[in-house]
């Protein structure tokens, strides 16, 4: 028998019971769509969290004195910073960098004292590396007030009960471990998607901070932004120094780990959905075989060999999956693209998301390779599911089956 005939019979068999086949196809379509869409939401949330972390404080690479991150000792400044900066200037994949002083201190007003990280920055450099300047909800970014301006997070501003032009006293120690209290005036208030960050970080001008702590010309941190995230490792490898050079995933291992395990997680998640679909396919195809006992018995009686009967049932299942999988993937692409542009408003759980550094509007995204892999996974799962009914068809005794009611 020609393959074409077998394909024709299998195809027509699929449409013998249009309602049943349509339900199976619809269930596969919805299953794939639901799986891919949730995967896209998860990937979108994760991407945003990563992007927000890189944009607000991490950047792609940071350089520190090896001892600095252990206890944030202000004396542990970067050694040979001039040479490093000269090298970085020549690297084509470095988009921008920012030199920082980083001090642990206390922000005080009449309403309270809160522990903060004080970042002494060059505003023009910093705004090329981080997006804080674009996240201002009030005021300006350290270029209006001539003396001791400060930019603080909205959450901290609420806690300290300050507004633009209010005074905030920063307490910290200088290089001689003398406690210093200096008054700053609020020039800007920012709000990122990460409320914890907003609460614990303040930005002042390097030129204001360095002389006070006697660290002029010295830096605790150089943050580097590459032309794209893929260039992170190559750029890191080009930096030759005794200082500690770390990439974003080394600085925030939880982010790197999430990113690395995301694909595995997505596949496991989709696998669970497909497993549930398998049972549906097995059930439907088993019904289709048992309903056609007499016909299959006839085929076996007249001399159709069992391999062809087996192939016919497998093909029927494969056809269902071949219709459903592309439809499910196309529907997914359409909705994921749409919500990738429009975003999904999750403001009802926005506070919870912000505490994890995520925006309350999630933009769905999914790597293209996942669409292909999920389509293949669906087809493979359908074939595995077809084995049970196909095997059942082979077990029929033709003499009994032709008389089955």
């Amino acid at each position: 028998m020609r393959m074409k005939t077998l394909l024709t019979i299998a195809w027509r068999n699929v449409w013998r019971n249009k309602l049943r086949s349509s339900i199976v196809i619809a269930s596969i379509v919805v299953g794939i769509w639901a799986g891919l869409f949730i995967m896209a939401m998860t990937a979108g949330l994760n991407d945003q969290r990563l992007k927000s972390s890189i944009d607000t404080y991490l950047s792609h690479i940071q350089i520190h004195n090896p001892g600095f991150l252990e206890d944030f000792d202000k004396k542990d400044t970067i050694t040979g910073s001039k040479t490093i900066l000269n090298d970085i200037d020549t690297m084509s994949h470095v988009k921008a960098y920012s030199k920082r002083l980083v001090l642990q201190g206390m922000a005080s007003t009449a309403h309270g004292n809160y522990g903060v990280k004080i970042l002494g920055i060059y505003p023009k450099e910093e705004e090329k590396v981080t997006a804080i300047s674009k996240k201002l909800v009030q005021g300006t970014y350290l270029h209006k007030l001539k003396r001791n301006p400060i930019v603080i997070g909205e959450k901290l501003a609420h806690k300290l009960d300050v507004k633009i032009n209010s005074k905030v006293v920063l307490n910290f120690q200088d290089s001689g471990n003398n406690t210093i209290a200096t008054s700053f005036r609020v020039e800007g208030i920012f709000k990122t998607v990460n409320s914890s960050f907003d609460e614990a970080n303040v930005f002042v001008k390097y030129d204001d901070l360095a002389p006070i702590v006697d660290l002029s010309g010295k830096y605790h941190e150089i943050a580097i932004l590459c032309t794209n995230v893929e260039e992170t490792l190559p750029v890191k490898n080009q930096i030759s120094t005794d200082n500690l050079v770390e990439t974003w995933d080394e600085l925030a291992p939880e982010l790197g780990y999430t990113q690395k395990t995301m694909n595995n997680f997505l596949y496991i998640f989709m696998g669970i959905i497909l497993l549930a679909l398998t049972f549906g396919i097995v059930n439907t195809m088993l019904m289709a075989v048992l309903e056609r006992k007499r016909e299959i018995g006839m085929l076996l009686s007249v001399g159709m060999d069992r391999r062809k009967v087996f192939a016919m049932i497998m093909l029927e299942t494969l056809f269902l999956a071949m219709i459903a999988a592309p439809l499910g993937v196309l529907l997914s692409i359409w909705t994921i693209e749409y919500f990738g542009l429009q975003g999904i408003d999750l403001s009802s759980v926005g506070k919870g998301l912000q505490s994890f550094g995520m925006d309350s509007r999630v933009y769905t995204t999914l790597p293209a390779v996942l669409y292909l892999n999920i389509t293949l996974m669906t087809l493979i799962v359908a074939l595995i599911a077809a084995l049970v009914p196909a095997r059942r068809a082979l077990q029929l005794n033709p003499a009994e089956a032709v008389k089955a009611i």
Partner: protein
Amino acid sequence: MNVIKTENLKKVYNEGKGNEVRALNGLSLAIEKGEFTAIVGPSGSGKSTLLNIIGGLDKPHSGNVFVNEIDILELEENERINFRLQNIGFVFQAYNLIPVLNAKENIGFIMLLQHESKETIDARVEELLKSVGLENQALKRPNEMSGGQQQRIAVARALASRPKFVLADEPTANLDSKSTSDLLDIMEQLNEKEGITFVFSTHDQRVIDRARRVVTMEDGKIIADILQSN
């Protein structure tokens, strides 16, 4: 020449249990080429079991079955499937046409299994449709035809591969008088003109009356074997 020959066939169902049934009890039968034979008997007499064994669909516990002098019980499973395909035509009580194929495709289906060319199949199908008087039903699917028409298509399908003989299990059980008469006319004509051997099990007196040989079974044995002149 014997097309079918069985020797001392024994078949027991539920052997050793309380509900043991001796379906065939040492049955021997020979059928010659061109016969038009009815196997008759009450339910449980062993008619269907005999047909299943002759058709290579079932195996006896003991005895021999020769078709064209080939011992079909000696054949391997795959050889037996191919033997059925090349040598035996089947007509079933419930027609058992493939619902998704039209009349023409149903008839040609067996020849497709035999890897015949499209031209050969088309020519043979046309010839058979004429033989069963359904040329104008060629493109209809089974659900668009009456029971009688479906069974005539089933007979045409059984003959498509030019089998050595046709086994028909209660072929008229689901048909009205007119359809039964039409079907018997066709089977008789094919038997007389083309010399096709027909063996059918039946309860139907109308079929029994038209058969030229009537083999009566009871309790797995032949109790009468009569040649009739119609």
